[in-house]
């Protein structure tokens, strides 16, 4: 209710906008090269030197009408402009260091307050990516890695990932936004329940965020990867934000053909632009075919995307209105089939397909007259997916195996499986996402500061209409499956509602410019049952970035600009549908296992318990980021350094729990096999009641991830004669992973005919510290005369370390079969049974492992031919390497590096 009140308030604020009727001179200050607005430029009376006003977030300003005045427009980084007020109101400022015509093939540090990397089209063309994953080489800490397209690719910003799914919140908590519409993975339920085989488990991407393989790069105009603290406009994230903007307009046809050692890519696009109508249409399609091993046709990944983007602009006297609509289809297909000649069955296969249909409409209003309301945006997006995993396997059992079938608690007979059958298991998911976002940018009139107040709200819905796990319980692919089928449609929809407000201020003064962007975002998850802790709870994300730019300095005759910035922000990621509503677990115990030569007389009787692993206490994962940065620009040579610390103590984790269950253990020794005429009856059988501990997993907030480090980027001007520009970037990362909750473990040993009946409880189990330090030296040369560009990148990894957190071999407590918890005593280590709870970690397991220096040298060349219509590019990564052998505890470790290369052709017609 509270939220609805906020929305009403926001709407009424927008409605109350009134045009100012006073007589004014208004104008807009733009960057002469980029034609982007210059924010916070000081407009002064040139004669009196008195500051009149500053430009606002859209570069506009207004001053009282006065024909006498001469304007002096200044802004840091620009040459001052002295001019009389002009009728058109467009004032172009020349940058002190011209970037005109500069071709940038690396990522560039954002010039705003938020720490982010911007990657433009040129850089992508030079990099020659197959999927979005390849772009991450460009951000500080990134390094070129061979594309691995047979398993999902997840993003890891500012961390050295372990690949452990218990620390996947980092990738889950990185939001991908394409043209303003988020890619939601909240209702992804594509996992094969009960699967143990690598074929299936290695491709499970649930609760791990966006699979970057599915994002084609060819339509992308620019990408901003926010590593630091994003605006409160963006929510449901902990670790980062990826904003992708795709191309609008242009003319002609484009084709791209790329082949590298593992994949082939084909792209075609047709662009339309009707200038007078301010109408653009872009249609494109791409197809990627990747193989894990070029010699193996049976294991592959295919992607197909089709995109249609229509944009219409209405330019009126007092406002501009832009309508953008996108229709996208993307299909990903993982295929893995056994070789019929090498294995037993033609039927053994794995196939996983994602079909995503997405529709987006965005309406943007920009006012031109001086008013409180500067702009308003409405974004509507929806996506429907049709996802299907199909797993077929010839199952041949080596021993009598059962399939528990009962969907109810209590005693029941299990079905004894045939020894040979073809099992087929499907997972059908139909995630539906709807997203609405309403934004308004307001401006409180001020002559001293440039300010923007952003207020907005968004609502997100995730629902899955699929049938979920579909298999014949009489022919299971995975015989140990502990869940039964349920329709995903029965899971309630996740509704997430947020409101946010953010004030951005730029205040140019004589002693420097102060910039502040501070805001707060409130998020709540709705449609939850009463007992959830999150029910009705608001989660607040306050975030602030502050920057201070020193006045212009001069060094060796070159202009020098220095900016210091700091930020702090809270980030919240809501749990996914699978984490909130996991499958019910069926815990079955054998009460009688009776074997008879006559199959009809065999009987396996079970006691079934149903455990709901739902954790009502689950809360969102929250990450607190802090960072400071320094940005120095001397004559266009720029150094940006950011030190950060991100602490997330409530990452999602699958944690095991043990509980005591009771069942009857029948003594079948009295049954006379010869006199049976049917299955043995249980009525007369003697039995003993057994208490047994059985474990199950549920989601908790038990994973801590602490990210610390320093990121740096040095970009030079292009050196005139050699036409070469040097970029040095890299990062030192130190990532600490830790389990903040007690873990449990039951030894598997069997002593005197029974598995050990005790479960040990271990404090803060599991964790590691990893470090890496790298620097990429990239020399890129652009020879316009020859239409040739090439780059050499020496990627140095100075060292990586990993160290497991030292944990005790001894439990702190243990659970006995009846469920009682006992404190661990020193003497328990000598007990015949309890001693198995003492684990066998040796001190060297916790020693620091250090991998020393390694360097790869990559080369990329692009050449334009035939009046720029043909564009040929090739890359060779790891063309040369320096990876010396090293000693690790007396063992010599040899390292091997294999080059990876590819070639592509772009045609523009």
């Amino acid at each position, binding site marked *: 209710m509270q939220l609805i009140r906020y929305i009403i308030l926001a709407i009424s604020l927008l409605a109350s906008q009134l045009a100012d009727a006073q007589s004014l001179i208004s104008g807009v200050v733009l960057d002469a090269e980029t034609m982007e607005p210059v924010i916070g430029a000081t407009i002064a009376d040139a004669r009196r030197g008195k500051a009149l006003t500053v430009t606002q977030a859209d570069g506009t300003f207004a001053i009282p009408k006065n024909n006498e005045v001469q304007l002096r427009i200044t802004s840091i980084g620009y040459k001052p402009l002295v001019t009389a007020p002009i009728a058109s109101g467009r004032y172009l400022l020349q940058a002190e260091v011209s970037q005109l015509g500069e071709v940038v093939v690396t990522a560039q540090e954002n010039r705003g307050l938020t720490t982010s990397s911007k990657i433009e089209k040129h850089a992508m063309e030079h990099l020659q990516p197959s999927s979005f994953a390849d772009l991450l080489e460009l951000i500080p800490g990134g390094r070129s890695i061979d594309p691995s397209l047979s398993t999902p690719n997840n993003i890891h910003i500012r961390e050295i990932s372990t690949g452990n799914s218990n620390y996947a919140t980092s990738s889950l908590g990185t939001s991908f936004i394409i043209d303003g519409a988020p890619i939601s993975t909240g209702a992804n339920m594509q996992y094969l329940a009960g699967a143990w085989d690598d074929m299936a488990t290695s491709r499970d991407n649930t609760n791990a965020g966006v699979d970057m393989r599915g994002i084609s790069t060819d339509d992308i105009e620019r990408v901003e990867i926010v590593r630091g603290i994003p605006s409160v406009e963006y929510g449901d994230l902990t670790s980062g934000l990826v904003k992708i903007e795709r191309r609008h307009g242009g003319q002609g046809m484009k084709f791209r053909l790329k082949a590298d050692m593992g994949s082939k890519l084909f792209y075609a696009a047709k662009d339309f632009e009707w200038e007078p109508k301010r109408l653009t249409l872009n249609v494109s399609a791409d197809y990627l075919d990747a193989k894990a091993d070029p010699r193996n046709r049976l294991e592959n990944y295919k992607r197909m995307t089709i995109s249609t983007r229509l944009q219409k602009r209405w330019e009126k006297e007092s406002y501009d209105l832009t309508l953008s609509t996108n229709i996208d289809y993307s299909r990903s297909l993982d295929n893995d089939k056994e070789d019929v000649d090498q*294995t*037993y*069955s033609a039927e053994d296969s794995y196939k996983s397909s994602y079909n995503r249909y997405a529709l987006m409409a965005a309406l943007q209003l920009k006012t031109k007259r001086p008013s409180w309301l500067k702009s308003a945006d409405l974004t509507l997006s929806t996506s429907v997916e049709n996802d299907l995993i199909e797993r077929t396997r*010839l199952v*041949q059992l*080596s*021993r*009598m*195996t*059962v399939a*528990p079938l009962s969907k109810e608690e209590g005693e029941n007979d*299990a079905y004894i499986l045939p*020894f*040979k059958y073809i099992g087929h298991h499907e997972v059908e998911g139909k995630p539906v996402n709807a997203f609405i976002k309403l934004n308004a940018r307001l401006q409180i009139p001020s002559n001293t500061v440039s300010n923007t107040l952003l207020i907005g709200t968004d609502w997100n819905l995730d629902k899955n209409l699929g049938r979920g796990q579909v298999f014949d319980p009489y022919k299971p692919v995975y*015989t*140990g499956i502990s869940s039964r089928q349920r329709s995903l449609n029965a899971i309630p929809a996740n509704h997430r509602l947020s409101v946010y407000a953010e004030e951005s201020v730029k205040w140019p003064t004589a002693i420097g410019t102060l910039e502040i962007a501070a805001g707060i975002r409130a998020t709540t998850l709705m449609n939850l049952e009463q007992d959830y802790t999150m029910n009705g709870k608001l989660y607040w994300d306050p975030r602030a970035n502050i920057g201070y730019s020193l006045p212009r300095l001069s060094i060796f005759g070159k202009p020098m600009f220095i900016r210091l910035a700091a930020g702090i922000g809270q980030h919240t990621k809501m749990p996914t549908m699978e984490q909130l509503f996991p499958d019910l677990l069926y815990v*079955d*115990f*054998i*009460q009688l*296992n*009776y*074997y008879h*030569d006559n*199959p009809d007389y065999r009987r*396996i009787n*079970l006691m079934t318990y149903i455990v709901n692993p739902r954790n009502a206490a689950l809360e969102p994962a929250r990450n607190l980021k802090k960072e400071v940065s320094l940005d120095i620009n001397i004559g266009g040579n720029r150094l940006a350094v950011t030190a950060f610390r991100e602490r997330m103590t409530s990452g999602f984790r699958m944690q095991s729990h043990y509980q005591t269950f009771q*069942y009857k*253990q029948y003594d*079948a020794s009295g049954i006379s*096999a010869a006199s049976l005429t049917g299955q043995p009856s249980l009525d007369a059988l003697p039995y003993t009641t*057994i208490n*047994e501990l059985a474990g199950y997993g549920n989601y908790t907030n038990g994973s801590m991830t602490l990210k610390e480090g320093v990121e740096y980027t040095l970009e030079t001007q292009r050196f005139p004669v050699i036409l070469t520009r040097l970029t040095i970037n890299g990062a030192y990362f130190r990532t600490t992973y830790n389990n903040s909750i007690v873990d449990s473990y039951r*030894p*598997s*040993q*069997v*002593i*005197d*005919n*029974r*598995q050990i009946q005790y479960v040990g409880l271990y404090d803060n189990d599991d964790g590691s510290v990893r470090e890496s330090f790298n620097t990429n030296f990239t020399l890129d040369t652009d020879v316009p005369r020859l239409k040739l560009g090439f780059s050499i990148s020496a990627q140095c990894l100075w060292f990586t370390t990993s160290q497991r957190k030292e944990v005790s071999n001894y439990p702190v407590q243990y659970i006995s079969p009846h469920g009682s918890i006992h404190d661990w005593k020193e003497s328990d280590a000598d007990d*015949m049974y309890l*001693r*198995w709870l*003492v684990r*066998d*970690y*040796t*001190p*060297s*397991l916790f*020693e620091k*492992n250090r*991998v020393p220096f390694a360097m790869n040298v990559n080369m990329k060349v692009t050449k334009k031919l035939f009046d720029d219509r043909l564009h040929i590019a090739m890359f060779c990564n790891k063309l040369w390497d320096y990876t010396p052998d090293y000693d*690790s*505890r*007396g*063992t010599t*470790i040899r390292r091997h590096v294999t080059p990876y290369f590819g070639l592509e052709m772009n045609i523009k017609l």
Partner: protein
Amino acid sequence: MKKLILNSIMMMLAFTMCLTSCSSDDPVPVIPTATVTLEVPANLKNVVLSGARATLTNVETKQVVTIDNTKFIKQGNDYKIMCNELVAGTYNVAVNGHLDFTLNGVAGQKDFEVRSENVAISSTSHDLKMTISTFTAQGGFVISEIFFTGTSTAEGKSYSGDQYIIITNNSDVTLYADSIAVLESAFLTTDKQDYEPDIMSTHFSVQACYMIPGNGKSVPVEPGKSLKLAVNAINHTTEQPNSIDLSDADFEFYDETSNPNFTDPDGNAPNLDKWYCYTATIYQFHSRGFNSMAIAKMQTSKEDWLENYVYDATYMFVFGDFSKEMTKSGLYKVPNGWILDGVNLSVESVREWNVLDASIDAGWTYCGKVDRDDTRFDKSVIRKKDANGKYIDTNNSTNDFIPEAPASLLNK
């Protein structure tokens, strides 16, 4: 000891009384004390004679003197029979009876009869020696076959439920198989590590120990006879036509569990007593033969062994760019002295070492020359026999075994 002396004195007294009653005035001299010493094979221990009878038949007079079991006096490993007041002459001597003993720690038994014809007993020659030579009591239980590869289905998939091991009484006495355990090595023959402490010369480290249950004399195995111990003692051919009917197995490796993921069919054969196993899932032999196997006579109680025979080994693990000191726990150990027979199994292409001490097995045997060799199915390792039909046991399985032999129980 005291009792023995007392018994001897009592017997002496009895003989003296007999002497007085049997006195005669014949001219044929009467030997006051003739003795017959019954020599028992030296390698038998804890020999107990029962139901024994010595018969001395005078060839001339046909007079028969019978001495029953109570008059056999134990002397060391041997027995001595005192014959008082025996008329000198030529005798046919026969001794029969039943021996209970332990042979290499294994309880055994044997009926015997020894004869000596036309033995002259005189005042100068009245100490007879009779050696039980009808059996040698050499050897004992041996592993005669291990079928660890399993069979394959019509589609070529591995089927391992039909694994079995056969142990055979290779001696010429009946031996009891009670408390003989089948042991599986904890270490792999394909992964050599310098385990610390190194106990191989004194102990065998094991990860599974399944023992034949019994009260000590429940499972007699006659000479040359075998016991079939099946992983699943059921008729596999009903489900898997290429497989074996093991429903007549003598014992079964049964894994009782409450977890329906690991159901183990409980065939008709009695179950082995699962003293220890490293896993709570299904137990089966390594189907490529990476673990060595042994049989041992467990010489202590289950409780004592579980309590006092734990072995924690540490070693240096090296893999890729990674080396760590590791602990291998979850191990037990069995003194080499308890082991009756052991066989190192491996695969030539990946073999690194033997995990049994050379005194138990100095060699190794195999099914399949390369790892994951699908031709290994249906094959087992079978001990060779000598000309007399006895299994050869030189404690070197390279010599003693036929590798890749067709499984003996597989009818093809």
